[in-house]
């Protein structure tokens, strides 16, 4: 295991076990931090104080009885607002789900609740998780705790900001094309996109079903591993979950990187990359070589078209997934003169600008006469890209590269140019296209702004990511301590 003080979950748990704090006191710390900071940051869409307090008291009672409690019992956390929580609003950042209160929990939420986790609230996101800055939330943007004039990344920007500001030790996010990793990099925390199928998507508001994965955002690699272990596993309610149970990740923390083959993919250092980001990442890779990693350059030629492949396939899937918002069964309805008029008005008023743009593009690439040229071609290209990754993982154990081509950008900088915003995901989308897992760990700071190192492994090898991530955390870069929860 990594040094115990790096795991905020374990140190909170130690306080509970030693009776230095009650679960309710940990919750109050968290609520106080939210009250103090969230007026400006806007990481949360809903704070669920009553439900959280009820859970906290139940766990306190179990502690008083001397029950043996799971690792996450009593630890506060936050959940991205596109993940269904029974009895708590789930808006997906959209007006069309403004009053939606799900009658059931997502499987990942059931897993957290089974451990006694205290869900403090639901976090802000780009509408339907479509975006890279959290500026496309229908409820207003989230700000980056490291620099409030800058975006926290997206779409899991609320989850990243809540963790980076110390409001909660961990949060759940979703990652369709980088929505966990890019905000983790922008906010200077750890974020993991698991192997496709590792975590159930049941109860997660669907964006692009063959890409979407739930994963943790946390302040240490070990915390990310603890949360992943809690939420992972086969689920009969999601037919795409991997059938084998996830491995225990403990062993990954006992090994160093000596002898590990680390590939540096040249396509992940494109010509437009911020030189500060690329230099910082190269220094971190050199440090891994000093620790005994065998570093070599590798190539994944098809990565150059990954962003185009991605935007064809995800918009196609989104255009069909979002057909369910029709004002009939749930969500907003705008009255109209006919059924067709209800659809047009409901979807016209309920969807925001980038959602409309993506549904239009998805409709285009699937339409008669164009599906062959775009959708089916992109589906074939996806296979080529997945094969490129499979080939490279015969040569190396892990890839190391930047998570983003830039430092966190300013609010408003890219909202008027969709292609510029999409390009922010250029280094994260190949991972979702190939279905492999990736971990982002902070590896440097340029002034106050963090730089994230992205580690990518073969499908099913989250353990390798954690092993290298722990080495970066322990020996390469010490991330600045997040603003501590207010002293009690």
């Amino acid at each position: 295991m990594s040094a115990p003080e790096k795991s905020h979950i374990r140190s909170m748990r130690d306080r509970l076990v030693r009776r230095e704090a009650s679960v309710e006191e940990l919750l109050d710390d968290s609520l106080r931090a939210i009250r103090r900071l969230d007026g400006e940051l806007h990481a949360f869409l809903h704070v669920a104080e009553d439900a959280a307090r009820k859970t906290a008291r139940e766990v306190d009672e179990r502690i008083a009885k001397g029950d043996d409690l799971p690792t996450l019992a009593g630890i506060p956390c936050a959940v991205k607002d596109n993940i269904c929580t029974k009895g708590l609003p789930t808006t997906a950042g959209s007006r069309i789900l403004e009053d939606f209160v799900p009658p059931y929990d997502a499987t990942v939420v059931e897993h957290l609740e089974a451990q006694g986790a205290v869900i403090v609230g639901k976090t802000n996101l780009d509408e339907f998780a479509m975006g890279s800055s959290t500026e496309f939330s229908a409820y207003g943007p989230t700000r980056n705790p490291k620099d409030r004039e800058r975006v926290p990344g997206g779409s899991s920007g609320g989850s990243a900001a809540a963790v980076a500001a110390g409001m909660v030790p961990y949060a759940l996010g979703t990652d369709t094309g980088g929505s966990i990793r890019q905000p983790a990099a922008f906010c200077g925390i750890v974020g993991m996109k698991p192997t496709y199928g590792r975590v159930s998507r049941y109860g997660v508001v669907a964006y692009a079903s063959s890409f979407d994965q739930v994963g943790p955002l946390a302040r240490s690699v070990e915390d990310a591993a603890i949360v992943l272990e809690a939420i992972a596993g086969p689920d009969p309610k999601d037919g795409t979950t991997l059938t084998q149970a996830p491995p225990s990740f403990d062993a990954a923390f006992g090994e160093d990187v000596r002898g590990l083959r680390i590939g540096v993919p040249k396509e992940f250092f494109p010509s437009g990359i911020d030189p500060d980001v690329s230099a910082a990442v190269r220094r971190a890779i050199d440090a891994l070589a000093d620790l005994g990693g065998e570093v070599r350059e590798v190539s994944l030629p098809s990565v150059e078209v990954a962003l185009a492949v991605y935007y064809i396939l995800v918009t196609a899937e989104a255009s069909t997934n979002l057909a369910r918002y029709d004002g009939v069964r749930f969500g907003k309805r705008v009255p109209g003169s006919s059924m067709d008029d209800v659809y047009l008005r409901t979807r016209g008023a309920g969807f925001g600008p980038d959602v409309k743009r993506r549904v239009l593009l998805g409709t285009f690439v699937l339409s008669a006469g164009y599906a062959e040229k775009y959708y089916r071609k992109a589906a074939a290209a996806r296979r080529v890209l997945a094969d490129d990754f499979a080939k490279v993982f015969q040569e190396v154990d892990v890839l190391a590269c930047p998570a983003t081509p830039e430092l966190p950008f300013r609010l408003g900088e890219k909202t008027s140019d969709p292609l510029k915003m999409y390009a922010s995901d250029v280094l994260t989308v190949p991972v979702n296209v190939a279905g492999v897992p990736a971990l982002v760990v902070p590896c440097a700071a340029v002034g106050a702004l963090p730089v994230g190192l992205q580690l990518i492994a073969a499908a099913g090898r989250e353990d390798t990511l954690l092993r290298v991530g722990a080495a970066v955390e322990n020996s390469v870069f010490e991330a600045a301590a997040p603003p501590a929860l207010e002293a009690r």
Partner: protein
Amino acid sequence: MPPSQAFALDHQVLVKRLARLARIGLTKDEEARYTSEFQAIVEFVSQVERVQAEPSSLKATVTGVRHVVRGDTSEPSALADLLLDQAPDTRTGFLKVPAIL
């Protein structure tokens, strides 16, 4: 055929038609904005033509995971009423919508 030529079609007509297909009512401003953006976005995604691969059979999955299908059996669910409660308008256990015919 270069992408720009492939899209020598009228983008305003195209955006209108797509919005109609997707059942999204657009304001005049939105229509103008999407029309002005569409060519650049389509040209961007046309990079996919550079990949040497036959159009996919659509059966392929990247992770090799087989979709596991549940048995086609019905079972009682306590959710039915709760789900109905989510609907904007209902009458005697049915979803209520404007007349279709």
